[in-house]
């Protein structure tokens, strides 16, 4: 069976992490990893990247702000007031 080269393996990392590889591809992926320090590091960098992205979650009250990113300020006071009053009015509509 053909062995992966590193440039092929890097394209399968998300499929590997999602558990979407078929059995034979998965075992070739894992065999390659065992013998390849470079790909092992790459996989670890990829995992760190995914974990770091998770720390950007904005929905938790008091979560770190996204300086300069759209949405960082949340809804404007005017929009929020408008929505609250639309919600209130729905009962009487």
């Amino acid at each position, binding site marked *: 069976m053909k062995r992966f080269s590193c440039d092929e393996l890097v394209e399968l990392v998300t499929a590997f992490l999602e558990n979407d590889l078929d059995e034979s591809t998965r075992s070739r992926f894992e065999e390659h990893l065992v013998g390849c320090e470079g790909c092992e*590091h790459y996989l670890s960098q990829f995992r760190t990247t995914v974990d770091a992205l998770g720390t*950007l979650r904005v929905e938790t009250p008091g979560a770190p702000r996204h300086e300069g990113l759209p949405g960082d300020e949340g809804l*404007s006071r005017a929009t929020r007031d408008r929505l609250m009053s639309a919600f*209130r009015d729905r009962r009487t509509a």
Partner: protein
Amino acid sequence: MESFTGGRLPPDDVVVAALRAGDEAMFATLLDTWSRGMLWLARSHVSTNDSAEEVVQDTWLAVIKGIDGFEGRSSVKTWIYRILVNTARKRGVRENRTVPWSSVFEQERPTVDRSSFQGVDDPLPGHWKYLPAIWPTPAPEGELLAAEVRVRIGAALAELPPRQRTVITLRDVEGCTSEEVCEILDISAANQRVLLHRARAAVREQLEDYFETARRSA
């Protein structure tokens, strides 16, 4: 799913019952918990922050109108995000900003720079020329990621093509499952994976650049 609902909101059936009963505190909580993420996502599709705010406003108005008819076939948040994405897309089309979502496959270009690998004349073509570095261990649990790293990731996300940014935001930032993302965006599992992989690889590259610069200046 715990992470997707934020971990602080009550279960969906409680949320829905409260909204139907006109519980203003519950509505305010949802507004304040989800609107920032929604604004960010809407901004991928439209051309200004004001436009994104209108998309989010229209989404909440549709939620107010539709809550009595909500059938619970998906989670409340998936339902709201579907409305958001559809509203944002329509608006993006009006603003001539939208890439057709049907052409979902990005260009088939490698996600790692070819110069990182050995060429045909090297001893092991396709294998690493330079080993990827070991990155510094992430900050201990509970400690915030270095502000600089977050800024760097934010910039990397901002540079992504809209479809990739939407998928990676929903999956890795918001914590949706792949099934939820497929449902919200109406794309296949394979498309979702391709977009996610390209986006993650692009963010990884930016972080590599950051860590490399940090290492050199240390």
